[in-house]
Structures are given as C-alpha cells and as structure tokens.
C-alpha cells in the first residue's frame, strides 16, 4: 500500500504529473519497508498495524465524507458494529461462510444508511453532527439491548478465522498482508472517484452548495449516496475486525469509537485521501506509545491532539501534500 503514499498524497490535480523518478524510488522504498515489517517487527507492533489498516478502511469513509462532501459523521461506529455482528452471528450461529456475513453486514449497513441518511442529511453543520452522534448512541443502546443477536455485554466469541483460498489468516502477519492491500485498493478507488464527475460535484457541493445546485447537482441525493458508501466501508472494516479479534462485544462499538473515527479523519487531513492512513496510524500507535509514561498518557495524548490541530490545521495529509508540492515546486511553475 505504501507505493500509493506518493501518488495519493499528491494533490488531486488535473494537470498531469510527469514521471518522477524520485517519487517512484520513494514509493518503492516504502513498499519494501511495508513488505518487510512483519518479518522484523514485534507481534504487538504488527497487531497495531493490522488495527491501523482496519481503521483506515472505516476511517476512509469518514474522511471522505468530512473532507470531500463537508459532512460530519459520528455514526461510523454503528456501521462498524453492524459489520462485526453480522459476520459474527452468521458464522457462529448459522455456521455460514464468512463472505455471507460480510455481504449481509454491508447490505444492512447500506440499507440503514439510506433510510437514516435520507432525512438526516437534510441537516447540515452542527445539527448534522449532533444527529449522527444521536445515531451512534442509539446504535450502542440497541447493540446492548438486543442481546439475542449481539450477545449484549457478554458479546459473541469463537468467531472463526478468515480463510482466503484455503489459506487461513490465523496470525497477525497473515492478516496484515490481507488488510493493507485491501485498504490500498479502497484508497485507490476513492482517488478514482475524486477524479470523476461525481468527485467534482461533491467538492463543489462542499465549497458552495448553492452554486453546485445551479450546475445541476442534486446535493441531497449525492450526500445520501456518499453516506451509504461510507457506511459500507464501515461495515467491511467491522466484519474484518470481528474475524481478526475473534470476539466482539458492545464495548467495541461505543461513542468513543465513533469519535475516534472522526478524530482520525481530522488529524490525518480530511481533504487528502492518504489522510485516512496517517490518521489511523496515529490514533492506533501514539496512545500505545504514550501509555508507557503511566497515568499521564491521556493528558499527553490530548496535548498532542491540540498541538496537531493548531500547527497542522490541514492534518498530516495536508502537511504531506504541501511538502510534496514544495519539493515539486520549481518543476511545476
């Protein structure tokens, strides 16, 4: 996936960037680094990287909504949960193969996103943020109360390992090699989308909704479509999460998770595609590193968040994009 870093980090420009040998070299280096990590890294680091990959997928949905469509969504934890419970229930209760659970989870999430998004996305700004927060809270309550389906606080255990063409993903290393290429493909697809008619429409809608409407864009329908797409990403990540940890309970799908997904988008840089990756790495790895300082780690993390938002208002992705532009500067002008 790291070979994308270069490409995806570059601003979505409509001018053709020439063959940058340096860029390719950096990309190749990062790809090699990515491929070699599982061979040298500790198990806990690989574990964190797998989670980063999962959060990248779910966070990409939130990032895209926030950065490209101007929609603040705190509801991603719900779709993450639906994906997780769906595959957990189908595989443990019915003994169905995992893909069935994935498809059902994604389908249910899409349907709920459509049904809820249609009315809710008439709102905008703070009201929309609050409405999606309400959705996250309702989702968490239902996950707890519907224990016949979710196991409530006891959760669902014994979720089987994923099997890919007869190859069991039983170790974090193997999962790492599944989740990151998948994330990379999804990042690429979203980059494609940004460079299509729809991508132009959503960025137009973000910057000046009235002017977008005048150009013929049905803002509401477009928002709903993007919300559904984002929910599908959330469900996919949730399903993968369930198979990776093999046990799911309501604690994983609370409001804190929803906030984490939004935090990831803001820190990573919502206007860039690569922002989802950078944000996911940050929210997974940094708290773990800080935890060695003892009880003060939460305070340190908070300080770091504030500093990031102040000094990098466009997030890590925005800063990286600026850096790339700066390096290319002379060639472009």
């Amino acid at each position: 996936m790291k070979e994308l870093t270069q490409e995806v980090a570059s601003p979505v420009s409509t001018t053709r960037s020439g063959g940058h040998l340096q860029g390719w070299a950096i990309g190749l280096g990062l790809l090699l680094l990515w491929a070699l990590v599982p061979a040298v890294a500790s198990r806990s680091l690989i574990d964190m990287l797998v989670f980063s990959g999962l959060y990248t997928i779910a966070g990409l949905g939130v990032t895209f909504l926030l950065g490209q469509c101007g929609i603040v969504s705190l509801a991603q934890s719900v779709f993450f949960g639906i994906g997780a419970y769906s595959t957990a229930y189908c595989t443990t209760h019915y003994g169905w193969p995992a893909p069935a659970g994935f498809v059902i989870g994604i389908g249910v999430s899409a349907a709920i996103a459509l049904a809820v998004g249609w009315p809710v996305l008439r709102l905008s700004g703070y009201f929309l943020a609050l409405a999606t927060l309400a959705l996250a809270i309702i989702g968490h309550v239902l996950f707890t109360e519907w224990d016949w389906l979710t196991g409530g606080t006891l959760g669902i255990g014994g979720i089987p390992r994923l099997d890919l063409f007869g190859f069991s993903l039983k170790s974090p290393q193997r999962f790492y090699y599944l989740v990151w290429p998948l994330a990379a493909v999804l990042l690429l697809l979203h980059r494609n989308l940004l460079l299509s008619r729809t991508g132009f429409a959503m960025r137009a809608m973000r910057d000046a909704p009235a002017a977008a409407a005048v150009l013929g864009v049905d803002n509401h329908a477009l928002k709903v479509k993007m919300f559904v797409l984002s929910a599908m990403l959330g469900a996919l990540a949730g399903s993968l999460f369930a198979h990776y940890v093999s046990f799911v309970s309501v604690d994983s799908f609370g409001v804190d998770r929803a906030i984490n997904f939004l935090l990831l988008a803001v820190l990573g840089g919502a206007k860039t595609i690569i922002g989802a990756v950078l944000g996911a790495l940050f929210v997974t790895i940094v708290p773990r590193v800080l935890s060695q300082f003892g009880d003060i780690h939460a305070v340190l993390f908070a300080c770091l968040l504030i500093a990031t938002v102040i000094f990098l208002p466009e997030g890590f992705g925005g800063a990286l994009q600026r850096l790339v532009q700066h390096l290319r500067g002379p060639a472009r002008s």
Partner: protein
Amino acid sequence: MSPLLEVKQVSRSFSGLRVLNNVSFAVETGRITGLIGPNGAGKSTLFNIVSGFLTPDTGQILYQGHDVNRMSVAQRSRVGLVRTFQTPQVFANLTVRENIMAGCYKQTASGVIAGLLGTPRVRAELKRMRAAASSACDRFGLAQVSDQPAGKLPAGQQRLVELARACVAQPTLLCLDEPSSGLNSEEVARLMQTLARLSEEGLTILLVSHDMDLVAVASVIHVLCFGEIIASGALSQVQSDARVREAYLGT
C-alpha cells in the same frame, strides 16, 4: 413565439412584509433583459424565485411554456436555467480550471460505481471536461490563473470564474445577479463586452443590477421598485419615465 421565461403575477411576503407584489414580466429568447431597481426593491427575491431558491406565495414561473414552480434549483438547471450570485460563489478550494470543469456536470453522466472504478468512460469524460475548461479559460481571460485556487483570486476574477463556469454549463437562460458589483470601471466595460458577445452568439441573458451603466447592454429593461414593476422598455424610455427618475434620483 412565446417568451423563454414568463413571470406571472408573482407575490412574496416575508413575515408580513410584502416584498413582491403581483410582478409580471417576460424574457424574450435571444435578448439581454435587464431588471433594475434601487436597493430593497425586491430584485434578489425575484431572482431567487426565478432560479428556484425561493417559492412564490402566489403566481407562476413559466419556462419554455412549462410551469417550473415545483422544480428544484438543480432541476431548473437541467432545463437550462443557470444563474450566478451577487457574492461570487466559487468553489474556493478548487483551482479555476477545476471550477470550470465542475461546470460540465450536466454534460457528463457517469455514476458513483463507474467513478470508483475509473472506467474508460469516466476518463473520457474527464478529458472532455478538461478541454471545455481550457477553452473557457482562454475565452474569459483566465488562462493565466487557471491553476490557482479560485478562493484566492480577487473578486473581479472570481466573477469571471463564475461566469465561465455558468457558460460551460450550457444555459438556455443565463441569469446574472449584480455581475458588476465589486468590479472597477475597466472590468465593468470588459464585462459588458463579454455579455454583448455572448448575446450575439444567441444566449439569452437576464441581468439584475442597480447599475444603470451596465444595463445599457440590455435591449429591454424592467424597473422594479418596492416590489412592483414601475416601468418597462428600452433604456432611453425607462430613463425618461417620471416614476423611475423619482425612484432613482429622488427628484
């Protein structure tokens, strides 16, 4: 031939205050029609009603003979009714070129899934959008700034971006809301030339302004005052109208 746009007995009140009172006028195909009036005359309200941002309390908007009252802004755009805004509404984070590319929305048709997959059709569309933007940039004198973010441009150029973008959207009626506000006299003169050229090419234009100089490009002018049309006709006609003089000059 029936007029392109017909406003029929439109009234609209805001919290009891009647802003438009039984306003009727028509826009003929192929002409520049001016709508002028002092501040607070109801021009913006009328304009918002025509473009679909507001609904009238009573009255009808007929476009190409069809009632468009219930159509959304986007739907009206699809039948060719495109407007600009008093405060230029550019897509601030997009470059000038990208702004104009976004104007091609109606001339393209690919969906979300095709967009995700980046199908050949999507790439062909992008190429067409880029070509349209390039020629529009040249035409409206924006080639120099085509790679700059539109939000960073001075107001005069933002207006041009908006105008170029609106033209790329292939309107049958182009509605311009105070296109000269924020422009210096040189820019106004150039804008008038551009409008005259667009009109010669067959575009129908509805121009809303309180600037008497700019509306000189219009062949028919309607004067709106306190929510009513008080005079209609050619510039010299409305200028000599006693009520217009009173409204404008207070004499």
